[in-house]
């Protein structure tokens, strides 16, 4: 029993787990309501006005959640785990791609060993850095603009009009929907299909 315990390492601290699941749940709702808003004449999940108000409430919950994440990571300095090491990033990324494309199938071990200080592999680092500091903020800001078009009309006009804002919001929406699909699949590539999911609940990842 003790040997089992030793193999477990604590990778996701409680704030991160809470943040993650609020965010995940929020995204699913945002995607569903967003689809209903955009394809009002094809979908009948809920009335348009409900979809809009739900989307707005959840949107703000996700923004608030993002701020929690930001404060936690930047405040604790842990944000470092998101910054790739420029000297190694290319070689590591190539290794990781090879693993997902070949090594995984033949049962080779993952070249990246997860530790609390080095949680993400090189691919994850780049993707998450981009998402958390560019794409998600862009999604949230464009969403807030769409929420009060008249109120923010000055900024909106400066950026080229409501249609530009909406294009950003929609393109990112498609990106995030695709991202979540792939994200969920990749999460099954742990040493057992459910290992990574369990870890996001308990905080402990089995070490190999």
């Amino acid at each position, binding site marked *: 029993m003790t040997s089992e315990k030793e193999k477990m390492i604590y990778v996701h601290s409680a704030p991160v787990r809470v943040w993650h699941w609020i965010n995940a749940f929020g995204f699913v709702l945002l995607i569903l309501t967003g689809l209903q808003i*955009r394809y009002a004449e094809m979908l009948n999940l809920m009335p348009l*006005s409900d979809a809009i108000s739900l989307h*707005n409430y959840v949107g703000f919950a996700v923004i608030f959640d993002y701020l929690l994440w930001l404060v936690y990571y930047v405040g604790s300095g842990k944000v470092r785990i998101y910054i790739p090491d420029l000297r190694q990033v290319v070689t590591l990324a190539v290794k990781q791609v090879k693993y997902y494309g070949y090594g995984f199938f033949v049962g080779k071990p993952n070249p990246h060993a997860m530790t609390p200080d080095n949680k993400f592999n090189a691919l994850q680092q780049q993707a998450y850095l981009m998402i958390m500091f560019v794409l998600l903020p862009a999604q949230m800001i464009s969403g807030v603009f769409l929420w009060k078009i008249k109120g923010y009309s000055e900024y909106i006009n400066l950026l080229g*009009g409501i*249609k530009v804002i909406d294009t950003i919001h929609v393109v990112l929406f498609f990106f995030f929907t695709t991202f979540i699909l792939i994200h969920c699949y990749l999460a099954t590539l742990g040493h057992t299909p459910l290992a990574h999911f369990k870890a996001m609940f308990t905080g402990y990842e089995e070490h190999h």
Partner: protein
Amino acid sequence: MKKILRWGLSIVCICWLWPAAGFANENSEWFECHSDEGLTKESTDNILKTEITEFLYVDEEKFNHSVHNINGITCVDCHSDIEELNYDEEVPHEQYLKAVCCASCHEEAGDDFKNSVHMKMRNKGITMTCYACHGYHYVQHMESASVAERENSICLKCHNPYQFHDWLPSRDSHFAYVECVVCHAPDVPRHINLKLYDLVTDSFYKSDKLFKVLGMEPEQFMGTIDANKDGLIDAAEFDNLVLLLKQKNIHAVFRAELVADINSIAHHVNRGTAEKTCQNCHSAESPYFNAVSLIFSKDDGTVERYNVARPVLESYHVSHFYLLAGTRMKLMDKIGIFLLAGGACAVFIHFTARVLTIPLRKKKDQDEA
């Protein structure tokens, strides 16, 4: 009664000594008296039943620009109970005139107005006149007026729309882009007005200025722009128009608004009949956006109007108008489907390979064990 008129004024009027029988059908004659800003009479307010001072001044300049004067309507066409001016009297005509009947000329509007809450409240003893909404001496053509101008000059004089419409999100957007009667008289024909907004001067391009810059007459416009001569500016022709404007150094964007046609059906405002179904507007098939026209205002409130194909609303040229679900860009949807399909394919291929290679990994595990 005669004391009522201010002294100085009456003297001026009397001293004029016009031929007694001269009947005024030239508007200028009326301004001998009515251009005085101090001209007043006392009367009783018919609601409050108190004495009030009524101003009898008519702004000649503004009256001359009114649609009625431009169409040759004179004072007595409306104040038709004045049959002659008798300058022997201190006041050359009856002091208390009959109410003006607008519907005597505007028959259709008169009929349509009968089907309106504002007429039906006569049953409650409240009479609403035509001019409570339209005004009377300074009526302008409404065709070129923006949504805000139409609302400010009519409905917002009496109603505060923020007291109602709690169910409507983005109320300020709706009130800014949808004229009240488009929802409240849902059978009125309506269309999208596209106007050219000059980013340099922060104002809408007027017809005369624009055509001077373009170096053509308004009649030549369609001939130049509408290449396939179907009377409709389609998306490709619109691209060319934008190019032409750029070549002429016009830095402008197109702004769009949903307005009612200038049609007397707009009077059909009734309780409980307003458009409430979001999807009727917020959908790609919405009938509200079938008619689109490009308009350039003229000084008299009329417009040069050119028909535009609906897909132009989806283009980036109309960058300041985006109707949720209604004018969404089909290109975006294609990009989205492409992204999603790509992601799904990648997952599917990886997953298949993963299933097929299970024996490989099993074997390796056994070898290690």
